[in-house]
């Protein structure tokens, strides 16, 4: 999984510190934001960048990777992510009735 790090450009970039993959963060309306992420980078960086861009509170959204809630401390490597994988950004659910 670590070695299919996208195209030439990424490979060159990634030579220094691990491979780089493309990640897509998709919100519930289907809008996508693309990120280039090193395999060893904590996803927190992606989340924060996404939240900043969208102007949402990080605590009010959850990031799911194919159903698994992704914690900010995890890295793509640990989660077995591959190039082009999609992270779902969903909004916190509450309910009380």
């Amino acid at each position: 999984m670590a070695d299919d790090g996208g195209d030439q450009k990424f490979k060159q970039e990634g030579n220094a510190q691990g491979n780089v993959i493309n990640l897509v963060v998709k919100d519930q309306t289907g809008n996508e934001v693309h990120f280039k992420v090193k395999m060893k980078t904590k996803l927190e960086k992606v989340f924060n960048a996404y939240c900043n861009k969208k102007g949402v509170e990080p605590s009010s959204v959850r990031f799911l990777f194919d159903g698994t809630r992704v914690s900010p401390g995890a890295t793509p490597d640990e989660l077995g992510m591959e190039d082009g994988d999609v992270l779902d950004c969903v909004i916190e659910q509450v309910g009380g009735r």
Partner: protein
Amino acid sequence: MVRYGILEDDAPALREFDMTQSAAARGSGSFSGRKRKAEAVHSLVEMCLTSSRRAFLSFSWTAKLLRSPKRTRMVGGGVPWSGFNWLQHKYLHHAVLGAAKASSELAGSAAAAKPTREAPKPPGRGDAERNRTGRAVPAAPKQSPDAIDLVDLTLSDDATVTSGRATNPGRASACDASPATASSLPTASSQPPALRTPTSAPTRLTQTTPVGGERCGSRRGGSINGTPAALQVARAGTPRLAVHQALRPRPKPTACVATTPVGPATNLQSLTAGDLGRLLGGTSWLNDEVVNFYMLLIQKRDAESRRRFETAAAAAAAAAAAAPPATAAAAAVAGPSSHSSAAVGRSGVPLAKSGAARASAVAAAARLPLGPSADGEAGPAAAGQAVREYGGCGPQAEAEGCGQRSLQPVPASPLRQVVTAVAAAVAAGAKHLAQRGKHGQAAAQPPPPAAAAAAGASSVPAAAAVLEISNSVPGSVGTTASLNQQQRQSQPQTHPHHQHQQPLTVFAFNSFFFSKLTDKGSRKCFAYGEVRRWTMPCRTYTADCVLMRDLLLFPINHGNSHWCLAAVWPRRRLLQYFDSLGGSRATADWVMGTLLRWLLTDAEDKGVTHGSVDTAGAAAGAAAEAAAAGWRREWSELRIPQQLDGGSCGVFVCAFAELLARGVPPEAFGFSQTDIPAMRRGMAEQILRGAL
């Protein structure tokens, strides 16, 4: 003058100090003004927290401090006690009991009658005592205005730290007043809970039995225990929640209080203090974080119990292969755990009857399985029963088996291992054993948990043998015990999961699953593509495809205002929809229809054929359609507890899920709206402890 003292954990002797003395000790001079007092209180509380000792203030002063908002500010202003609830809570935990004792001993007031009764006891014994006193004499402290004030206050107006919420005052203060176990817990989540002193077991059982028994039928009679784990924790009169919270110094709402890994070990899902507050404070709504976290715990417990069970079964097989008949061998196998050998030894004595001999009875029952397997007939009922008994690592088995607190996953494993080992090793004297087995069964409840955990991994031969037996008709043995078994077997339609040879395998989906699938709840949408990858083994981080599991749980959020639970039993071809508000037929149909469609589509996509689905081929769409016809849907038929308020649906959902995962049929769900506050507490404790 403010009196306070320190109560050593084990030595009931108290030491008294004047506030001035302590002030001198701290080098802050004399105490005259209010501010100084506040400082002293602050240091006192700090001391309580940092040491393993209990400290107390004189009761009236404590009450005043807690009651008056002015003084609240006083304490909260200068010194860093902005979160006054924490101070208050710490009192609840550390000071109330001591204060009661102090006021009765020092001031000689007859006021704190109840707390004094409990105070001098070592906490282990206090556990059993507590419930009784708490229930029996709730009005006792009425004579003391101070005590009442304090207790009422601590119970009523705490926002984040509702440790005493919804229990009666006596119980609450008592719960929080056994800090020895409390302070012996270094950290919360990863800590295996300390064992209770076994002496408290019988008393506590008699305590809990009537309560749980009323609702879910007589436990002794062998019916299923449908009390949610959270409720059992709460009913055990647990001080743990208080302890866990006290050990964390004033977390911010964003601070993480509990974590559990999702998928890879490094991917920790965390729960913040704010979320826990939502869980505890009944007024604010539950969010997905708590619900999903609880689901994860359920899943984790399930996986763990299965794993243990399989290792136990393997061990049993090995033992059976090595030394078939000898009990001694069994004991040897069981060796590592002292508890086990004790049980074996005791079961050598015929018909142990007292409540204390419960363990032996269980062991005896456990012996049966192989007795029959050798002789061909004897007590198949007991066989199934005994094994089932241990299938659930649920609270039940442990609570009754040994005197420890319920819901401790750790001790269950050796015990179960032993039982299986014994079962596998003992072949001789089947008749004799059969008798004892009946007795054991009568005494033992058939905890449905992870149901019918008939000996283990079916690949193991010995286990398989046991399975056959437990599946075979419970013929000859005409006791009440076997009657129970027969009853159960006579309704395979309704509870086929009791017949499973393994513990139920459960997978709990994320609460976002359904909203993804339906695109945030649109009734027409079926966005299978969104969730197609969700069940791939590499994405669920499981070895097997989750579609193959016995039970799939789907917490469902409706319009950000309500929580429901859907359960899918692929092998039973059954869909269930649990709505604690009843819900409407249309919604139920929609949810179940969507899930069924998803299941069939996904099974096709993943090439999974369920035991019963395979007849339909699951290959072509038409076949899937046909298969859909054979699925039963249960909704209004389910007689499940209904909520009566407007804010506890999430708790209901968690309880439903927990019970289902333990194999409890819906009609045996044993809780109601009145238990919800206690369940919240219990859930919080489970979460903090990191395990169900």
